[in-house]
């Protein structure tokens, strides 16, 4: 990739990766996000220290498929749990306890339930991280000093240079017009 070449040929021409606009309040971020969305950008993001209510709509984010993934994990846990209990106690090593049937549902519910919860919860955490592309320990945005406040008290909009509508000068002027504190271009 180009970034690797750039690192190797020190001093070579750098390419703009991101444009980063900074805002002071969640309100400013929201109205700016709406305008970026309406301008037709697709590869862009908003950054905030906490989830800002209404920002999903303002950015036009589609609802995540994560719940379906978690449901699948849960069903797998339920089926796996029941299968484990049946295979170990009724098939591979049949347990005859007090003349009770070798397999019945009620006594096997607790373990099945626990495994359902275990796999669903693991699915929720791992799925959330995977869909988010995390862990991603290095990111171009971290090269901005200002961006360090994105986890404390500042709000940002970043536009990826890979966006089809991106044009270095035009997009920068557009971001400046959104009324933020500062617009930065980040190179890699």
């Amino acid at each position: 990739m180009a970034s690797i070449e750039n690192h190797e040929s020190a001093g070579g021409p750098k390419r703009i990766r991101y444009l980063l606009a900074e805002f002071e309040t969640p309100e400013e971020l929201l109205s700016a996000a709406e305008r970026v969305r309406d301008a037709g950008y697709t590869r862009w993001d908003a950054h905030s220290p906490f989830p800002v209510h209404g920002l999903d709509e303002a950015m036009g984010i589609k609802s995540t498929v994560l719940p379906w993934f978690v449901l699948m994990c849960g069903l797998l846990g339920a089926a796996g749990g029941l299968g484990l209990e049946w295979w170990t106690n009724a098939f591979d090593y049949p347990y005859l306890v007090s003349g009770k049937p070798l397999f019945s549902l009620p006594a096997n519910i607790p373990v099945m339930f626990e495994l359902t919860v275990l796999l669903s919860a693991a699915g929720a955490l791992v799925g959330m991280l995977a869909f988010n592309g995390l862990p991603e320990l290095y990111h171009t945005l971290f090269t901005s000093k200002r961006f360090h406040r994105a986890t404390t008290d500042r709000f940002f909009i970043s536009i990826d240079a890979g966006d089809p509508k991106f044009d270095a000068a035009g997009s920068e002027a557009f971001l400046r017009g959104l009324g933020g504190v500062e617009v930065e271009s980040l190179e890699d």
Partner: protein
Amino acid sequence: MIDNTADDPRRRAPLVLGEHNFATVTDAVCNIVEAPAPPKAWYVALAVSVGLTGVLFACVGYLIMTGVGVWGLNVPVGWAFDITNFVFWVGIGHAGTLISAILFLFRQKWRTGINRFAEAMTIFAVVCAGLFPAIHVGRVWVAYWLFPLPNQMAIWPNFRSPLLWDVFAVSTYMTVSIMFWYMGMIPDLATLRDRATTRIRHVFYGIFSLGWRGSNRHWHRFDRAYLLLAALATPLVLSVHSVVSFDFAVSLLPGWHTTIFPPYFVAGAIFSGFAMVVTLMVPARAFFGLKDFVTLRHLDNMNKIILATGSMVAYAYGIELFIAWYSGNLFEKFAFANRAFGPYWWAYWTMMTCNVLVPQLFWFKKARTTPWIMLVLCALVNVGMWFERFVIIVTSLSRDFLPSSWGYFKPTAVDLLTMAGSFGLFFTLFLLFCRYLPMIAMAEVKSIMPKAGLDYGVHRGHGQYWGEIPHQHNQQAESAAGPTGTAV
């Protein structure tokens, strides 16, 4: 300090006191972690805790080298301090998940000030709890027989045994609690990473924050995952102590064999867990200067929950006695008469005093809002809840159906030191947490501050935010902030 414990239904009381904006919230929480040295009291407490942890490991080592004979338990009392401590610690662990999951689903915004803290406490309590079943099996080196793993006996565990359910319930609970706690902490670890001034902090918090950059596309999935985890943890937390109670209820022993056990155990667990949260929270908020985030209202609310669950526990005690009489069963009646007036009467009446009478003092607002009073009361509740498990386990076992097989359990020094040592382990982990991890969920607290309040779009008049909501849209951040504590 503003009194935010008054309930004026016309306005929501502020959840964060003092003149805070987003940056000062971060400062207040991160400064604890970033300070060159913690308060002196921290060192003293850590030295004592680490010493006790050493005692714990010495006792466990001695037990493993010698055998369970070093404990006082013997037939007929085959379970004593080991399982008492196990149930006690698991119970303590229930408050964290209740606060983080159930109060989240009920939209109790005040939980944001205390959830991180309570979840951490849960995990440490479950660590202590998990130790006891592992060491009580006698031959610790084959403890893996508890799990469905191939072993030298070519036999699988019996999945119809409540003891096996317990293995799955507690290990699931431990895993899910850690995942819930860690996931909630990722954004706050990123805050610490971004503020890091030393290389080691940058690398440590950098790795554990996984490259979180506050992206809203990420927040969207994060929120959804958090909701799902809360929805999953809610039945889980209710199931765990139910399953623990099955260890007893599914047996045939008088005093154990009762259908009331699952709800009774869950109520008791939440009761003791909240008492432990308050016990730790009162000193921690004073030492680390967190009174703006863990306000008297938080403590007041927690004490109300202690009162409610304590009353449920009292009701369960009453019903147990009533059913023992109403059943007309000789053994059942004897089991309860023996608890109250038999050789363990002192344990029974300690339990009754601490669990039935003491929490009733929380009807008084003075008790709910005075830190030292609640500290004393909550410590007593914890004593009472330990004795509850002792009474249930030991009195029932010591005198069952045949007088010829009766016995009396006396703890040995190893029993007592192991129990004391488990407190050492708990407090050691807790003190390390206070020093190295964000004690307050910063991102969550910020999201319920009035400054985050948006009179916007579909969320107009949503009532999501607490305290005075700034109405002027175009004001600059600083002036729009307004003191968060201006509500009376």
